[in-house]
């Protein structure tokens, strides 16, 4: 064999793969150990995580535990006001809070796609660590898997959480009663619009940021204030309208809400008007509804408004025993119509 190429007494170096996720990062060997130590342990460090055992252990008090899990597959990974990391922590904390629980510990499961930039992973993990620290809820166990390039979307995260429900607290859809006041903890739709603006490259007048935030402090404050909370539910996918329909079906009651009382900020309204979307169906990540006895509505609002996450709280409607399973909206012009479940995703209109 002959070659015109000059002889070089060296082997060509392979392209550096140091800065991207490789299949070996999920293979159980040295690279995986480095990833766990250099990225996850360094960011999440706490005494319960430190042993790196197959699970975390802790002594339990007498009482009622709450346990929840949620998976996060948001695209894009980063959006105004948040990212998949902060979302994965706040979202699961909020699911626990909606059970009336004080969140104790979280787990974090990562499914990473081969080729994911290490810098992107680090940003996400740092964001999770910061969100967990801010909320005071440590991540005490976790897992990492790596899938072939093209078999994932960069990064998927599952977080599970355990919390403790204070003695005497019961917060369930079945406890909703006719006459209850329906309260919402703030303005609606900013998360959905923020994500949409980045995903679709749309720019709107007025900057819209996601409302992602932990809600357990607001809920704890409501419980400590002696408010007789019948039900709590965070307003995530499908927005307020979908959640009210779910609760009406679960409790077998009706609801009437007043369109003029529902807080929606101007930039969100503008974006929704432009696209033909209804903000009542747009996703939120830091808002909830509370059903409380009507005489306690004002006291509950006062508690909620003490928190940044609840400073636009509003009394938007009432639980009824007419029209069971149906949510009725009193419109801005004073008429009534059904506020129904959507059949699927809202789609932007043609004209």
């Amino acid at each position, binding site marked *: 064999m002959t070659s015109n190429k000059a002889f070089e007494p060296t082997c060509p170096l392979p392209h550096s793969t140091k800065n991207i996720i490789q299949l070996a990062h999920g293979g159980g060997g040295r690279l995986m150990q480095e990833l766990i130590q250099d990225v996850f342990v360094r960011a999440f460090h706490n005494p319960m995580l430190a042993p790196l055992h197959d699970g975390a252990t802790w002594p339990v008090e007498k009482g009622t535990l709450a346990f929840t899990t949620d998976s996060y597959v948001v695209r894009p990974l980063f959006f105004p006001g948040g990212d998949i990391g902060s979302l994965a922590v706040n979202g699961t904390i909020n699911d626990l809070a909606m059970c009336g629980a004080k969140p104790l510990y979280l787990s974090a499961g990562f499914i990473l796609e081969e080729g994911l930039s290490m810098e992107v992973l680090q940003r996400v993990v740092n964001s999770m660590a910061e969100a967990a620290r801010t909320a005071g809820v440590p991540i005490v166990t976790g897992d990492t898997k790596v899938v072939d390039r093209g078999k994932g979307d960069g990064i998927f995260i599952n977080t599970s959480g355990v919390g403790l429900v204070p003695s005497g607290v019961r917060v369930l859809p079945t406890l909703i009663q006719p006459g209850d006041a329906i309260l919402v903890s703030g303005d609606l739709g900013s998360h959905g619009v923020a994500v949409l603006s980045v995903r*679709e490259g*749309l720019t709107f007048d007025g900057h819209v940021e996601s409302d992602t935030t932990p809600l357990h402090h607001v809920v704890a404050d409501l419980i400590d204030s002696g408010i007789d909370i019948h039900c709590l539910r965070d307003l995530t996918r499908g927005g307020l309208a979908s959640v009210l329909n779910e609760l009406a079906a679960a409790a077998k009651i009706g609801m*009437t809400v007043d369109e003029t009382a529902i807080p929606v900020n*101007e930039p969100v*309204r*503008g974006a929704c*008007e432009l*696209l*033909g979307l209804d903000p009542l169906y747009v996703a939120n990540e830091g808002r909830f509804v509370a059903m409380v006895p009507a005489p306690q509505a004002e006291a509950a609002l006062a508690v909620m408004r003490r928190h940044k996450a609840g400073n636009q709280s509003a009394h938007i409607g009432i639980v009824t025993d*007419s*029209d069971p399973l*149906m949510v*009725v909206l*009193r*419109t*801005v*012009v*004073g*008429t*009534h*119509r*059904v506020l*129904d479940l959507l*059949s*699927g995703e809202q*789609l*932007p*209109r*043609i*004209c």
Partner: protein
Amino acid sequence: MKYVDEFRDRAVAAALTERIKKTAQRPWTIMEVCGGQTHAIVRFGLDSLLPKNLELVHGPGCPVCVTSVSLIDQAVCLASAPGVIFCSFGDMLRVPGSHGDLFGVKAADGDVRIIYSPLDALELARKNPDREVVCFAVGFETTAPAWAMAVAQAKQSGITNFSLLIAHVLVPPAMEAILSSPQNRIQGFLAAGHVCTVMGYEEYEAIAQKYRVPIVVTGFEPLDVLEGVAMLVSQLEEGRVKVENQYARSVSREGNRQARSIVSEVFEPAPRTWRGIGEIPSSGLRLKSTYSDYDAELKFHRELAQLAEGKEDPECQSGLVLQGLLKPMDCSAFGVRCTPERPLGAPMVSSEGACAAYYRYRRNVKGEG
């Protein structure tokens, strides 16, 4: 919100309602042409504010609803073709053809993209020279200028991997088809404000006089619709026949000259088959011969030739609904065998479809209007 809240004022709505009640002495049947108006009427419960002697009938003005099954089948076929990026406004993805919809193609690994502007689709073609970008050009006169602009720019830039599957429809021929029908009951029209923003309302004047039917160009907010109805009822009660403009903040008699100019530069009228109604002469648009390289039906004629004639579900009565001859809730399949999850026809899935509006907003509410 400025330009919105002023047109949703409860006190003004009450005053307009009172004015309508005082004026309307006889029974009248009025059609709102546009699906956007249909949704405003049902979403805000405006029909419940009107006296019982006024009947609002919903017209054929939902471009999604009137797109024929054959065209949906063509869209599904092209979207499934290898190497194609198929672009559509979001509304069209759920509309059923003979064998599924565009969402189904997307789920089966077809490259279907929701776009917000025709120029975004052109940009996709520019960035993907090795792919064919096919766009579903849907809509009334409102969206035609933007598609015309995209085609003109494609030609100017020498972009050849870009084409339109054209489903454009025109309002005036549809109005004439309704008025010519022996079953016609319509005595006055609310004309579509967005269409007239582009086209003006000169051509409606001839229709008004020919069929002796008053027309009011109307907007989409609750107060727009109520004022449009009030103006129309005044004409009907006084026996006047005119085209009046309620939506003057957006519409002029001559319309948007630049928009009209680019439409007539790129498109020409053509016969169009309307779902549930049939073919209406000169009620659609096609590309002029100078732009025929951008016509997806010509470009992909081999792929499309294998398609059988599209078949509508025989139980779907969308044709009667779209002509105002049947109220959605009077259809025996409504809410039973036809729901947004399992639609028999497009009016149950389109965001501007009359059936969808009734299903979503108007089922057994006991509350008083």
